[in-house]
Protein backbone atom coordinates (compact mmCIF):
# COMPACT_ATOMS: atom_id res chain seq x y z
CA UNK A 1 0.00 0.00 0.00
CA UNK A 2 1.26 3.43 -0.82
CA UNK A 3 1.66 5.82 2.07
CA UNK A 4 0.84 9.51 1.78
CA UNK A 5 4.53 10.38 1.64
CA UNK A 6 5.29 7.99 -1.18
CA UNK A 7 2.30 9.18 -3.15
CA UNK A 8 3.51 12.75 -2.79
CA UNK A 9 7.02 11.73 -3.86
CA UNK A 10 5.62 10.03 -6.96
CA UNK A 11 3.55 13.14 -7.77
CA UNK A 12 6.52 15.49 -7.48
CA UNK A 13 8.76 13.16 -9.48
CA UNK A 14 6.18 12.82 -12.25
CA UNK A 15 5.56 16.56 -12.45
CA UNK A 16 9.30 17.08 -12.81
CA UNK A 17 9.49 14.40 -15.56
CA UNK A 18 6.61 15.99 -17.50
CA UNK A 19 8.10 19.48 -17.19
CA UNK A 20 11.60 18.38 -18.19
CA UNK A 21 11.40 18.63 -22.03
CA UNK A 22 9.96 22.16 -21.81
CA UNK A 23 12.88 23.33 -19.72
CA UNK A 24 15.69 21.28 -21.15
CA UNK A 25 15.78 20.80 -24.92
CA UNK A 26 19.07 19.11 -25.83
CA UNK A 27 17.93 16.69 -28.56
CA UNK A 28 20.59 14.06 -27.90
CA UNK A 29 19.83 13.84 -24.20
CA UNK A 30 16.09 13.76 -24.90
CA UNK A 31 16.70 10.94 -27.39
CA UNK A 32 18.51 8.93 -24.73
CA UNK A 33 15.66 9.59 -22.29
CA UNK A 34 13.06 8.39 -24.81
CA UNK A 35 15.06 5.20 -25.40
CA UNK A 36 15.38 4.65 -21.66
CA UNK A 37 11.62 5.10 -21.17
CA UNK A 38 10.65 2.75 -24.04
CA UNK A 39 13.07 0.03 -22.99
CA UNK A 40 12.08 0.48 -19.32
CA UNK A 41 8.53 -0.24 -20.38
CA UNK A 42 9.68 -3.38 -22.24
CA UNK A 43 11.75 -4.55 -19.27
CA UNK A 44 8.87 -3.84 -16.87
CA UNK A 45 6.60 -5.91 -19.13
CA UNK A 46 9.07 -8.78 -18.95
CA UNK A 47 9.39 -8.54 -15.18
CA UNK A 48 5.59 -8.81 -14.82
CA UNK A 49 5.95 -12.55 -15.29
CA UNK A 50 9.66 -12.86 -14.54
CA UNK A 51 9.12 -11.87 -10.90
CA UNK A 52 6.86 -14.90 -10.44
CA UNK A 53 9.51 -17.31 -11.62
CA UNK A 54 8.12 -17.49 -15.14
CA UNK A 55 11.44 -16.80 -16.82
CA UNK A 56 10.62 -16.32 -20.49
CA UNK A 57 13.27 -15.88 -23.14
CA UNK A 58 10.53 -15.56 -25.75
CA UNK A 59 9.86 -11.87 -25.21
CA UNK A 60 12.21 -10.91 -28.00
CA UNK A 61 9.69 -12.68 -30.21
CA UNK A 62 6.75 -10.69 -28.85
CA UNK A 63 8.61 -7.42 -29.23
CA UNK A 64 9.57 -8.31 -32.80
CA UNK A 65 5.96 -9.11 -33.66
CA UNK A 66 4.82 -5.79 -32.19
CA UNK A 67 7.33 -3.85 -34.25
CA UNK A 68 7.16 -5.75 -37.53
CA UNK A 69 3.40 -6.36 -37.73
CA UNK A 70 2.70 -2.68 -37.08
CA UNK A 71 5.22 -1.56 -39.71
CA UNK A 72 4.15 -4.18 -42.28
CA UNK A 73 0.47 -3.27 -41.93
CA UNK A 74 1.35 0.41 -42.40
CA UNK A 75 3.55 -0.13 -45.46
CA UNK A 76 1.66 -2.88 -47.25
CA UNK A 77 -1.95 -2.37 -46.19
CA UNK A 78 -1.85 1.34 -45.43
CA UNK A 79 -3.29 0.62 -42.00
CA UNK A 80 -2.70 3.36 -39.43
CA UNK A 81 -0.61 2.29 -36.41
CA UNK A 82 -3.64 3.20 -34.29
CA UNK A 83 -5.23 0.05 -35.74
CA UNK A 84 -1.97 -1.75 -36.53
CA UNK A 85 -0.68 -1.67 -32.96
CA UNK A 86 -3.74 -3.42 -31.46
CA UNK A 87 -3.54 -6.02 -34.25
CA UNK A 88 0.15 -6.61 -33.59
CA UNK A 89 -0.53 -6.89 -29.87
CA UNK A 90 -3.31 -9.39 -30.56
CA UNK A 91 -0.92 -11.40 -32.75
CA UNK A 92 1.71 -11.48 -30.00
CA UNK A 93 -0.96 -12.38 -27.45
CA UNK A 94 -2.24 -15.22 -29.62
CA UNK A 95 1.28 -16.60 -30.02
CA UNK A 96 1.81 -16.35 -26.27
CA UNK A 97 -1.39 -18.33 -25.71
CA UNK A 98 -0.47 -21.00 -28.29
CA UNK A 99 2.92 -21.57 -26.68
CA UNK A 100 1.85 -20.86 -23.11
CA UNK A 101 -1.18 -23.09 -22.92
CA UNK A 102 0.55 -26.44 -23.48
CA UNK A 103 3.48 -25.28 -21.32
CA UNK A 104 1.26 -24.45 -18.35
CA UNK A 105 -1.34 -27.14 -18.86
CA UNK A 106 1.31 -29.87 -18.99
CA UNK A 107 3.52 -28.38 -16.28
CA UNK A 108 6.46 -27.45 -18.43
CA UNK A 109 8.43 -25.41 -15.91
CA UNK A 110 11.96 -24.37 -15.06
CA UNK A 111 14.57 -25.39 -17.64
CA UNK A 112 11.96 -26.71 -20.00
CA UNK A 113 9.97 -23.48 -20.04
CA UNK A 114 13.09 -21.39 -20.60
CA UNK A 115 14.24 -23.57 -23.49
CA UNK A 116 10.81 -23.60 -25.18
CA UNK A 117 10.48 -19.82 -24.97
CA UNK A 118 14.09 -19.45 -26.06
CA UNK A 119 13.29 -21.43 -29.17
CA UNK A 120 10.21 -19.23 -29.70
CA UNK A 121 12.24 -16.03 -29.98
CA UNK A 122 14.75 -17.82 -32.20
CA UNK A 123 11.95 -18.91 -34.51
CA UNK A 124 10.39 -15.43 -34.74
CA UNK A 125 13.80 -14.12 -35.77
CA UNK A 126 14.04 -16.87 -38.40
CA UNK A 127 10.59 -16.02 -39.79
CA UNK A 128 11.42 -12.31 -40.06
CA UNK A 129 14.66 -13.20 -41.83
CA UNK A 130 13.01 -15.79 -44.07
CA UNK A 131 10.25 -13.46 -45.27
CA UNK A 132 12.88 -11.02 -46.52
CA UNK A 133 10.79 -10.16 -49.56
CA UNK A 134 8.41 -8.35 -47.23
CA UNK A 135 10.46 -7.56 -44.14
CA UNK A 136 13.79 -6.69 -45.72
CA UNK A 137 15.40 -9.60 -43.84
CA UNK A 138 18.45 -8.85 -41.72
CA UNK A 139 19.04 -5.56 -43.56
CA UNK A 140 16.20 -3.98 -41.61
CA UNK A 141 12.92 -2.32 -42.37
CA UNK A 142 11.69 1.26 -42.46
CA UNK A 143 8.04 2.34 -42.15
CA UNK A 144 7.06 4.69 -44.99
CA UNK A 145 7.11 8.37 -44.14
CA UNK A 146 3.61 9.71 -43.73
CA UNK A 147 2.58 12.21 -46.40
CA UNK A 148 -0.60 13.35 -44.68
CA UNK A 149 -1.71 13.45 -41.09
CA UNK A 150 1.22 12.90 -38.70
CA UNK A 151 -1.03 12.01 -35.81
CA UNK A 152 -2.84 9.37 -37.84
CA UNK A 153 0.50 7.85 -38.86
CA UNK A 154 1.88 8.16 -35.32
CA UNK A 155 5.01 9.77 -36.70
CA UNK A 156 6.39 12.88 -35.06
CA UNK A 157 9.57 14.74 -35.80
CA UNK A 158 10.11 16.54 -32.52
CA UNK A 159 11.64 14.83 -29.55
CA UNK A 160 9.35 16.51 -27.01
CA UNK A 161 6.24 14.76 -28.36
CA UNK A 162 8.00 11.43 -28.34
CA UNK A 163 9.32 12.03 -24.86
CA UNK A 164 5.79 12.65 -23.59
CA UNK A 165 4.43 9.57 -25.42
CA UNK A 166 7.23 7.38 -24.04
CA UNK A 167 6.68 8.81 -20.57
CA UNK A 168 2.96 7.99 -20.74
CA UNK A 169 3.63 4.45 -21.93
CA UNK A 170 6.25 3.93 -19.24
CA UNK A 171 3.92 5.26 -16.56
CA UNK A 172 1.20 2.93 -17.84
CA UNK A 173 3.61 0.02 -17.36
CA UNK A 174 4.39 1.07 -13.79
CA UNK A 175 0.67 1.48 -13.00
CA UNK A 176 -0.09 -2.00 -14.37
CA UNK A 177 2.80 -3.38 -12.32
CA UNK A 178 1.32 -1.89 -9.15
CA UNK A 179 -2.15 -3.02 -10.12
CA UNK A 180 -0.95 -6.62 -10.40
CA UNK A 181 1.08 -6.18 -7.22
CA UNK A 182 -2.07 -5.31 -5.28
CA UNK A 183 -4.35 -7.87 -6.90
CA UNK A 184 -5.31 -11.35 -5.77
CA UNK A 185 -3.46 -12.66 -8.83
CA UNK A 186 -0.19 -11.72 -7.17
CA UNK A 187 -0.84 -13.95 -4.19
CA UNK A 188 -1.93 -16.78 -6.48
CA UNK A 189 1.18 -16.41 -8.66
CA UNK A 190 3.47 -16.19 -5.65
CA UNK A 191 1.93 -19.36 -4.30
CA UNK A 192 2.43 -21.02 -7.68
CA UNK A 193 6.07 -19.98 -7.87
CA UNK A 194 6.65 -21.43 -4.40
CA UNK A 195 4.90 -24.74 -4.96
CA UNK A 196 2.55 -25.50 -7.82
CA UNK A 197 0.96 -28.55 -6.23
CA UNK A 198 0.25 -26.79 -2.97
CA UNK A 199 -1.23 -23.80 -4.82
CA UNK A 200 -3.44 -26.07 -6.90
CA UNK A 201 -4.54 -27.89 -3.75
CA UNK A 202 -5.43 -24.55 -2.17
CA UNK A 203 -7.80 -23.85 -5.06
CA UNK A 204 -5.61 -21.76 -7.37
CA UNK A 205 -6.26 -22.39 -11.06
CA UNK A 206 -2.57 -22.67 -11.95
CA UNK A 207 -2.95 -22.78 -15.73
CA UNK A 208 -5.38 -19.86 -15.88
CA UNK A 209 -3.34 -17.63 -13.55
CA UNK A 210 -0.14 -18.24 -15.48
CA UNK A 211 -1.89 -17.68 -18.82
CA UNK A 212 -3.35 -14.37 -17.66
CA UNK A 213 -0.03 -12.90 -16.56
CA UNK A 214 1.70 -14.25 -19.67
CA UNK A 215 -0.91 -12.67 -21.93
CA UNK A 216 -0.62 -9.33 -20.14
CA UNK A 217 3.15 -9.43 -20.33
CA UNK A 218 3.19 -10.39 -24.04
CA UNK A 219 0.68 -7.66 -24.97
CA UNK A 220 2.73 -5.00 -23.21
CA UNK A 221 5.96 -6.22 -24.77
CA UNK A 222 4.42 -6.07 -28.25
CA UNK A 223 3.29 -2.50 -27.52
CA UNK A 224 6.86 -1.66 -26.54
CA UNK A 225 8.09 -3.07 -29.85
CA UNK A 226 5.54 -1.06 -31.84
CA UNK A 227 6.36 2.20 -30.01
CA UNK A 228 10.08 1.56 -30.50
CA UNK A 229 9.49 1.06 -34.23
CA UNK A 230 7.39 4.24 -34.55
CA UNK A 231 10.03 6.24 -32.72
CA UNK A 232 13.16 4.91 -34.41
CA UNK A 233 11.53 4.49 -37.86
CA UNK A 234 13.99 1.70 -38.51
CA UNK A 235 14.02 -1.84 -37.19
CA UNK A 236 16.21 -4.85 -37.78
CA UNK A 237 15.48 -8.40 -36.65
CA UNK A 238 18.44 -8.22 -34.28
CA UNK A 239 17.42 -5.02 -32.49
CA UNK A 240 13.79 -5.96 -31.78
CA UNK A 241 13.65 -9.76 -31.81
CA UNK A 242 15.62 -12.86 -31.12
CA UNK A 243 17.48 -14.38 -28.22
CA UNK A 244 19.81 -11.44 -27.71
CA UNK A 245 16.90 -9.03 -27.08
CA UNK A 246 15.27 -11.53 -24.71
CA UNK A 247 18.49 -11.88 -22.76
CA UNK A 248 18.87 -8.11 -22.71
CA UNK A 249 15.46 -7.86 -21.00
CA UNK A 250 16.40 -10.46 -18.42
CA UNK A 251 19.73 -8.78 -17.85
CA UNK A 252 18.30 -5.30 -17.31
CA UNK A 253 15.54 -6.58 -15.03
CA UNK A 254 18.00 -8.54 -12.91
CA UNK A 255 20.56 -5.74 -12.73
CA UNK A 256 17.94 -3.22 -11.67
CA UNK A 257 16.00 -5.52 -9.40
CA UNK A 258 13.27 -7.92 -10.35
CA UNK A 259 11.01 -7.52 -7.35
CA UNK A 260 10.55 -3.77 -7.18
CA UNK A 261 8.46 -1.71 -9.60
CA UNK A 262 11.27 0.64 -10.60
CA UNK A 263 13.88 -2.12 -10.80
CA UNK A 264 13.59 -2.68 -14.56
CA UNK A 265 13.71 1.10 -15.08
CA UNK A 266 16.94 1.33 -13.11
CA UNK A 267 18.21 -1.58 -15.21
CA UNK A 268 17.35 0.28 -18.41
CA UNK A 269 19.08 3.45 -17.23
CA UNK A 270 22.23 1.54 -16.35
CA UNK A 271 22.37 -0.57 -19.52
CA UNK A 272 21.57 2.23 -21.96
CA UNK A 273 23.97 4.68 -20.33
CA UNK A 274 26.60 1.97 -20.40
CA UNK A 275 26.01 1.25 -24.10
CA UNK A 276 25.99 4.96 -24.97
CA UNK A 277 29.14 5.81 -23.06
CA UNK A 278 30.93 2.86 -24.63
CA UNK A 279 29.73 4.02 -28.04
CA UNK A 280 30.96 7.56 -27.43
CA UNK A 281 34.17 6.35 -25.84
CA UNK A 282 35.13 3.84 -28.50
CA UNK A 283 33.25 5.15 -31.55
CA UNK A 284 32.68 2.54 -34.23
CA UNK A 285 35.19 0.29 -32.53
CA UNK A 286 32.52 -0.15 -29.85
CA UNK A 287 30.57 -2.66 -31.96
CA UNK A 288 30.35 -5.71 -29.77
CA UNK A 289 32.03 -4.15 -26.74
CA UNK A 290 28.74 -3.12 -25.11
CA UNK A 291 27.42 -6.67 -25.27
CA UNK A 292 30.73 -8.00 -24.03
CA UNK A 293 30.48 -5.81 -20.95
CA UNK A 294 26.75 -6.69 -20.57
CA UNK A 295 27.55 -10.39 -20.63
CA UNK A 296 30.31 -10.15 -18.05
CA UNK A 297 28.14 -7.97 -15.80
CA UNK A 298 25.17 -10.33 -16.15
CA UNK A 299 27.28 -13.26 -14.99
CA UNK A 300 28.79 -11.26 -12.13
CA UNK A 301 25.39 -9.96 -11.01
CA UNK A 302 23.82 -13.40 -10.96
CA UNK A 303 26.72 -14.74 -8.93
CA UNK A 304 27.19 -11.86 -6.50
CA UNK A 305 24.04 -9.68 -6.46
CA UNK A 306 21.02 -11.68 -7.63
CA UNK A 307 18.54 -9.17 -6.18
CA UNK A 308 19.80 -6.38 -8.39
CA UNK A 309 21.01 -2.90 -7.51
CA UNK A 310 17.71 -1.27 -6.52
CA UNK A 311 16.45 -4.46 -4.86
CA UNK A 312 19.58 -4.73 -2.70
CA UNK A 313 19.50 -1.03 -1.85
CA UNK A 314 15.86 -1.18 -0.77
CA UNK A 315 16.62 -4.29 1.25
CA UNK A 316 19.32 -2.43 3.14
CA UNK A 317 16.86 0.36 3.95
CA UNK A 318 14.10 -2.05 4.84
CA UNK A 319 16.23 -4.10 7.20
CA UNK A 320 16.50 -1.09 9.44
CA UNK A 321 12.77 -0.54 9.41
CA UNK A 322 10.88 -3.80 9.24
CA UNK A 323 11.17 -7.48 8.60
CA UNK A 324 10.79 -8.11 4.85
CA UNK A 325 7.89 -10.09 3.54
CA UNK A 326 8.39 -13.81 3.25
CA UNK A 327 8.78 -13.88 -0.52
CA UNK A 328 11.28 -11.04 -0.45
CA UNK A 329 13.50 -12.96 1.90
CA UNK A 330 13.53 -15.62 -0.69
CA UNK A 331 13.93 -13.09 -3.48
CA UNK A 332 17.42 -14.39 -4.18
CA UNK A 333 15.73 -17.30 -5.78
CA UNK A 334 14.60 -15.83 -9.04
CA UNK A 335 12.52 -18.91 -9.55
CA UNK A 336 11.74 -22.21 -7.96
CA UNK A 337 10.87 -24.41 -10.88
CA UNK A 338 9.52 -27.86 -10.34
CA UNK A 339 12.80 -29.68 -10.15
Amino acid at each position, binding site marked *: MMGQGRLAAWGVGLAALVALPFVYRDPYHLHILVLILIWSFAYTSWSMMGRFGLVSLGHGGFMGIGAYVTALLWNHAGLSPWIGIPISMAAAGALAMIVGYPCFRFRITGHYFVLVTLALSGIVLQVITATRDYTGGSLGYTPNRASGNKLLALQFDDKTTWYLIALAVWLFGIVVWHWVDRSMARYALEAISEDEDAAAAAGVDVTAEKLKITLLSALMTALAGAIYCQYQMFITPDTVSGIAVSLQMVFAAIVGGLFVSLGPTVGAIITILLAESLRIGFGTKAVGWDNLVYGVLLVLF*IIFLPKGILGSLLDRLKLQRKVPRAHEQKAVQVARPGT
Partner: protein
Amino acid sequence: MGMQAFLDVFDIYLLEAVINGILLGGVLALLALGLNLIFGVIDVTWICYAELVMIGMYGMYFMVQYYGFSYFVAAPLTILLVAVLGAALHYLVIAPLLTAPPINQLLATGGVLFVLQSFATVAFGIDFRNLGIRLPVLALGDMNFSYARLLSFVAALVGMVAVYLFMTRTFTGTAIRAISQDRQIMALMGVDTKRIYLITSALGGALAGLAACLLVLQYDVHPFVGLSFGPITFLICVLGGLGNFIGGFIASFVFAEIISLGGLFSDLEWGYVLAFAFFIVMMFIRPAGLLTRRR
Protein backbone atom coordinates in the same frame (compact mmCIF):
# COMPACT_ATOMS: atom_id res chain seq x y z
CA MET B 1 3.38 -40.03 -69.36
CA GLY B 2 3.98 -36.48 -68.23
CA MET B 3 2.57 -37.29 -64.83
CA GLN B 4 4.85 -40.31 -64.53
CA ALA B 5 7.94 -38.24 -65.31
CA PHE B 6 6.87 -35.68 -62.74
CA LEU B 7 6.48 -38.38 -60.11
CA ASP B 8 9.90 -39.85 -60.89
CA VAL B 9 11.61 -36.51 -60.47
CA PHE B 10 9.66 -35.79 -57.33
CA ASP B 11 10.62 -39.13 -55.81
CA ILE B 12 14.29 -38.62 -56.51
CA TYR B 13 14.21 -35.20 -54.83
CA LEU B 14 12.20 -36.61 -51.97
CA LEU B 15 14.63 -39.47 -51.43
CA GLU B 16 17.55 -37.08 -51.65
CA ALA B 17 15.93 -34.83 -49.04
CA VAL B 18 15.21 -37.79 -46.77
CA ILE B 19 18.82 -38.97 -46.94
CA ASN B 20 20.15 -35.43 -46.46
CA GLY B 21 17.88 -35.22 -43.42
CA ILE B 22 19.46 -38.34 -41.98
CA LEU B 23 22.92 -36.88 -42.58
CA LEU B 24 21.95 -33.59 -40.89
CA GLY B 25 20.48 -35.59 -38.01
CA GLY B 26 23.92 -36.98 -37.19
CA VAL B 27 25.37 -33.59 -36.30
CA LEU B 28 22.23 -32.49 -34.46
CA ALA B 29 22.36 -35.71 -32.45
CA LEU B 30 25.95 -34.92 -31.53
CA LEU B 31 24.93 -31.47 -30.24
CA ALA B 32 21.95 -32.89 -28.37
CA LEU B 33 24.18 -35.53 -26.78
CA GLY B 34 26.54 -32.87 -25.44
CA LEU B 35 23.73 -30.80 -23.94
CA ASN B 36 22.00 -33.86 -22.50
CA LEU B 37 25.24 -35.06 -20.95
CA ILE B 38 25.75 -31.75 -19.15
CA PHE B 39 22.13 -31.61 -18.05
CA GLY B 40 21.96 -35.24 -16.99
CA VAL B 41 25.07 -35.08 -14.83
CA ILE B 42 25.32 -31.49 -13.56
CA ASP B 43 21.65 -30.51 -13.86
CA VAL B 44 22.54 -27.33 -15.74
CA THR B 45 21.53 -26.21 -19.22
CA TRP B 46 24.23 -24.45 -21.17
CA ILE B 47 22.31 -21.87 -23.21
CA CYS B 48 25.64 -20.89 -24.76
CA TYR B 49 26.31 -24.40 -26.11
CA ALA B 50 25.96 -23.39 -29.77
CA GLU B 51 28.29 -20.45 -29.11
CA LEU B 52 30.98 -22.86 -27.93
CA VAL B 53 30.55 -24.54 -31.31
CA MET B 54 30.95 -21.13 -32.97
CA ILE B 55 34.25 -20.51 -31.16
CA GLY B 56 35.39 -23.96 -32.26
CA MET B 57 34.53 -23.13 -35.88
CA TYR B 58 36.66 -19.99 -35.65
CA GLY B 59 39.43 -22.11 -34.18
CA MET B 60 39.28 -24.42 -37.19
CA TYR B 61 39.16 -21.47 -39.58
CA PHE B 62 42.24 -19.77 -38.17
CA MET B 63 44.27 -22.94 -37.78
CA VAL B 64 43.57 -24.07 -41.34
CA GLN B 65 43.48 -20.73 -43.17
CA TYR B 66 46.09 -18.68 -41.29
CA TYR B 67 48.50 -21.19 -39.87
CA GLY B 68 48.21 -23.66 -42.70
CA PHE B 69 47.51 -26.67 -40.50
CA SER B 70 45.99 -29.64 -42.28
CA TYR B 71 42.35 -30.30 -41.44
CA PHE B 72 43.17 -33.47 -39.55
CA VAL B 73 45.76 -31.75 -37.37
CA ALA B 74 43.48 -28.81 -36.65
CA ALA B 75 40.47 -30.96 -35.72
CA PRO B 76 41.92 -32.60 -32.57
CA LEU B 77 43.36 -29.24 -31.48
CA THR B 78 39.93 -27.63 -31.88
CA ILE B 79 38.28 -30.40 -29.91
CA LEU B 80 40.85 -29.88 -27.17
CA LEU B 81 40.35 -26.10 -27.25
CA VAL B 82 36.57 -26.30 -26.83
CA ALA B 83 36.95 -29.00 -24.17
CA VAL B 84 39.13 -26.60 -22.17
CA LEU B 85 36.54 -23.86 -22.75
CA GLY B 86 33.80 -26.17 -21.44
CA ALA B 87 35.82 -26.96 -18.31
CA ALA B 88 36.56 -23.25 -17.82
CA LEU B 89 32.87 -22.41 -18.19
CA HIS B 90 32.06 -24.88 -15.45
CA TYR B 91 34.89 -23.78 -13.18
CA LEU B 92 34.28 -20.02 -13.52
CA VAL B 93 30.51 -19.72 -13.90
CA ILE B 94 28.64 -22.88 -12.93
CA ALA B 95 30.66 -24.02 -9.92
CA PRO B 96 30.03 -20.80 -7.91
CA LEU B 97 26.31 -21.18 -8.68
CA LEU B 98 25.88 -24.89 -7.95
CA THR B 99 23.70 -24.21 -4.92
CA ALA B 100 21.81 -21.32 -6.57
CA PRO B 101 18.37 -21.89 -8.13
CA PRO B 102 18.65 -23.67 -11.51
CA ILE B 103 17.26 -20.65 -13.36
CA ASN B 104 20.13 -18.49 -12.16
CA GLN B 105 22.66 -20.98 -13.52
CA LEU B 106 20.83 -21.01 -16.81
CA LEU B 107 20.74 -17.22 -17.04
CA ALA B 108 24.42 -17.02 -16.20
CA THR B 109 25.18 -19.18 -19.22
CA GLY B 110 22.97 -16.73 -21.14
CA GLY B 111 25.44 -14.05 -20.05
CA VAL B 112 28.25 -16.23 -21.36
CA LEU B 113 26.36 -16.42 -24.68
CA PHE B 114 26.54 -12.61 -24.86
CA VAL B 115 30.22 -12.67 -23.96
CA LEU B 116 31.17 -15.28 -26.57
CA GLN B 117 29.12 -13.65 -29.35
CA SER B 118 30.45 -10.18 -28.71
CA PHE B 119 33.98 -11.48 -28.16
CA ALA B 120 33.80 -13.01 -31.65
CA THR B 121 32.41 -9.74 -33.05
CA VAL B 122 35.16 -7.68 -31.43
CA ALA B 123 37.98 -10.08 -32.23
CA PHE B 124 37.04 -11.39 -35.68
CA GLY B 125 34.51 -8.89 -37.08
CA ILE B 126 31.14 -9.77 -38.51
CA ASP B 127 32.36 -11.07 -41.88
CA PHE B 128 31.34 -14.50 -43.04
CA ARG B 129 34.38 -16.73 -43.37
CA ASN B 130 34.72 -20.20 -44.79
CA LEU B 131 37.34 -22.83 -44.53
CA GLY B 132 38.08 -22.85 -48.25
CA ILE B 133 37.95 -26.64 -48.34
CA ARG B 134 35.55 -27.77 -51.02
CA LEU B 135 34.83 -31.45 -50.75
CA PRO B 136 33.60 -33.24 -53.87
CA VAL B 137 30.00 -34.23 -54.40
CA LEU B 138 28.99 -37.87 -54.48
CA ALA B 139 26.63 -38.65 -57.33
CA LEU B 140 24.45 -41.65 -56.69
CA GLY B 141 22.22 -42.22 -59.67
CA ASP B 142 20.43 -38.91 -60.04
CA MET B 143 21.01 -37.89 -56.44
CA ASN B 144 23.84 -35.72 -55.18
CA PHE B 145 25.27 -35.85 -51.69
CA SER B 146 28.13 -33.73 -50.46
CA TYR B 147 31.05 -35.59 -48.94
CA ALA B 148 31.05 -32.97 -46.20
CA ARG B 149 27.68 -34.22 -45.00
CA LEU B 150 28.63 -37.87 -45.29
CA LEU B 151 31.86 -37.27 -43.40
CA SER B 152 29.97 -35.32 -40.71
CA PHE B 153 27.45 -38.08 -40.31
CA VAL B 154 30.07 -40.80 -39.98
CA ALA B 155 32.23 -38.72 -37.62
CA ALA B 156 29.20 -37.84 -35.49
CA LEU B 157 28.30 -41.53 -35.19
CA VAL B 158 31.89 -42.42 -34.29
CA GLY B 159 31.89 -39.66 -31.68
CA MET B 160 28.68 -40.93 -30.14
CA VAL B 161 29.93 -44.51 -30.03
CA ALA B 162 33.15 -43.31 -28.39
CA VAL B 163 31.15 -41.49 -25.70
CA TYR B 164 29.01 -44.58 -25.20
CA LEU B 165 32.09 -46.78 -24.75
CA PHE B 166 33.64 -44.24 -22.39
CA MET B 167 30.50 -44.11 -20.29
CA THR B 168 30.06 -47.88 -20.08
CA ARG B 169 33.60 -49.28 -20.10
CA THR B 170 35.66 -46.92 -17.96
CA PHE B 171 35.57 -46.25 -14.24
CA THR B 172 35.18 -42.49 -14.74
CA GLY B 173 32.33 -43.08 -17.17
CA THR B 174 30.59 -45.31 -14.67
CA ALA B 175 31.02 -42.66 -11.98
CA ILE B 176 29.50 -40.05 -14.31
CA ARG B 177 26.48 -42.26 -14.92
CA ALA B 178 26.16 -42.96 -11.22
CA ILE B 179 26.19 -39.27 -10.37
CA SER B 180 23.49 -38.56 -12.91
CA GLN B 181 21.33 -41.04 -11.01
CA ASP B 182 22.01 -39.81 -7.51
CA ARG B 183 24.02 -36.70 -6.78
CA GLN B 184 24.13 -36.92 -2.99
CA ILE B 185 24.95 -40.59 -2.50
CA MET B 186 27.90 -40.66 -4.87
CA ALA B 187 29.77 -38.11 -2.82
CA LEU B 188 29.29 -40.35 0.21
CA MET B 189 30.60 -43.30 -1.80
CA GLY B 190 33.92 -41.53 -2.18
CA VAL B 191 33.49 -40.15 -5.66
CA ASP B 192 34.98 -36.69 -6.11
CA THR B 193 31.94 -34.89 -7.55
CA LYS B 194 33.91 -31.75 -8.37
CA ARG B 195 36.30 -33.74 -10.53
CA ILE B 196 33.47 -35.61 -12.24
CA TYR B 197 31.67 -32.35 -13.01
CA LEU B 198 34.82 -30.89 -14.51
CA ILE B 199 35.42 -34.00 -16.64
CA THR B 200 31.80 -34.00 -17.80
CA SER B 201 32.00 -30.33 -18.75
CA ALA B 202 35.19 -30.96 -20.69
CA LEU B 203 33.52 -33.91 -22.42
CA GLY B 204 30.50 -31.75 -23.29
CA GLY B 205 32.90 -29.13 -24.63
CA ALA B 206 34.76 -31.77 -26.65
CA LEU B 207 31.50 -32.83 -28.29
CA ALA B 208 30.82 -29.19 -29.18
CA GLY B 209 34.36 -29.04 -30.60
CA LEU B 210 33.76 -32.13 -32.73
CA ALA B 211 30.49 -30.61 -33.98
CA ALA B 212 32.43 -27.43 -34.83
CA CYS B 213 34.97 -29.39 -36.92
CA LEU B 214 32.09 -30.97 -38.87
CA LEU B 215 29.85 -27.90 -39.24
CA VAL B 216 32.71 -25.75 -40.49
CA LEU B 217 32.86 -27.99 -43.57
CA GLN B 218 29.30 -27.09 -44.50
CA TYR B 219 28.65 -23.61 -43.16
CA ASP B 220 30.39 -20.23 -43.10
CA VAL B 221 31.55 -18.94 -39.71
CA HIS B 222 30.28 -15.66 -38.28
CA PRO B 223 29.67 -14.50 -34.69
CA PHE B 224 25.95 -15.30 -34.84
CA VAL B 225 26.18 -18.71 -36.50
CA GLY B 226 25.24 -20.33 -33.18
CA LEU B 227 21.77 -18.83 -33.45
CA SER B 228 21.01 -20.87 -36.55
CA PHE B 229 21.33 -24.24 -34.86
CA GLY B 230 21.18 -23.42 -31.12
CA PRO B 231 17.38 -23.08 -30.81
CA ILE B 232 16.75 -26.28 -32.76
CA THR B 233 19.11 -28.17 -30.44
CA PHE B 234 17.14 -26.96 -27.41
CA LEU B 235 13.87 -28.07 -28.98
CA ILE B 236 15.40 -31.48 -29.69
CA CYS B 237 16.52 -31.86 -26.08
CA VAL B 238 13.14 -30.82 -24.68
CA LEU B 239 11.26 -33.09 -27.08
CA GLY B 240 13.56 -36.01 -26.33
CA GLY B 241 13.39 -35.26 -22.61
CA LEU B 242 16.28 -33.29 -21.07
CA GLY B 243 18.98 -35.70 -19.97
CA ASN B 244 17.54 -38.55 -21.97
CA PHE B 245 20.24 -39.65 -24.44
CA ILE B 246 18.13 -42.01 -26.53
CA GLY B 247 15.20 -39.60 -26.69
CA GLY B 248 17.55 -36.85 -27.85
CA PHE B 249 19.01 -39.15 -30.50
CA ILE B 250 15.61 -40.03 -31.96
CA ALA B 251 14.32 -36.44 -31.75
CA SER B 252 17.42 -35.24 -33.65
CA PHE B 253 16.54 -37.36 -36.65
CA VAL B 254 12.84 -36.45 -36.49
CA PHE B 255 13.72 -32.74 -36.52
CA ALA B 256 16.39 -33.14 -39.17
CA GLU B 257 13.86 -34.81 -41.47
CA ILE B 258 11.33 -32.03 -40.89
CA ILE B 259 13.92 -29.35 -41.62
CA SER B 260 15.21 -31.16 -44.68
CA LEU B 261 11.77 -31.99 -46.12
CA GLY B 262 10.45 -28.53 -45.21
CA GLY B 263 13.45 -27.02 -46.98
CA LEU B 264 12.56 -29.08 -50.05
CA PHE B 265 9.47 -26.97 -50.56
CA SER B 266 10.91 -23.58 -49.62
CA ASP B 267 13.78 -21.94 -47.78
CA LEU B 268 15.63 -23.62 -44.99
CA GLU B 269 14.25 -21.08 -42.50
CA TRP B 270 10.75 -22.38 -43.16
CA GLY B 271 12.00 -25.83 -42.31
CA TYR B 272 12.85 -24.44 -38.87
CA VAL B 273 9.41 -22.88 -38.59
CA LEU B 274 7.80 -26.22 -39.46
CA ALA B 275 9.99 -27.91 -36.86
CA PHE B 276 8.79 -25.44 -34.25
CA ALA B 277 5.14 -25.93 -35.20
CA PHE B 278 5.68 -29.69 -34.97
CA PHE B 279 7.23 -29.20 -31.56
CA ILE B 280 4.19 -27.27 -30.27
CA VAL B 281 1.84 -29.98 -31.56
CA MET B 282 3.99 -32.67 -29.92
CA MET B 283 3.77 -30.87 -26.60
CA PHE B 284 0.03 -31.39 -26.66
CA ILE B 285 0.35 -35.05 -27.61
CA ARG B 286 3.38 -36.02 -25.57
CA PRO B 287 4.07 -33.28 -23.01
CA ALA B 288 6.63 -35.37 -21.17
CA GLY B 289 8.87 -35.83 -24.20
CA LEU B 290 9.14 -38.59 -26.76
CA LEU B 291 10.44 -41.08 -24.25
CA THR B 292 9.18 -40.18 -20.84
CA ARG B 293 11.79 -39.61 -18.21
CA ARG B 294 10.95 -36.33 -16.60
CA ARG B 295 10.91 -35.37 -12.99
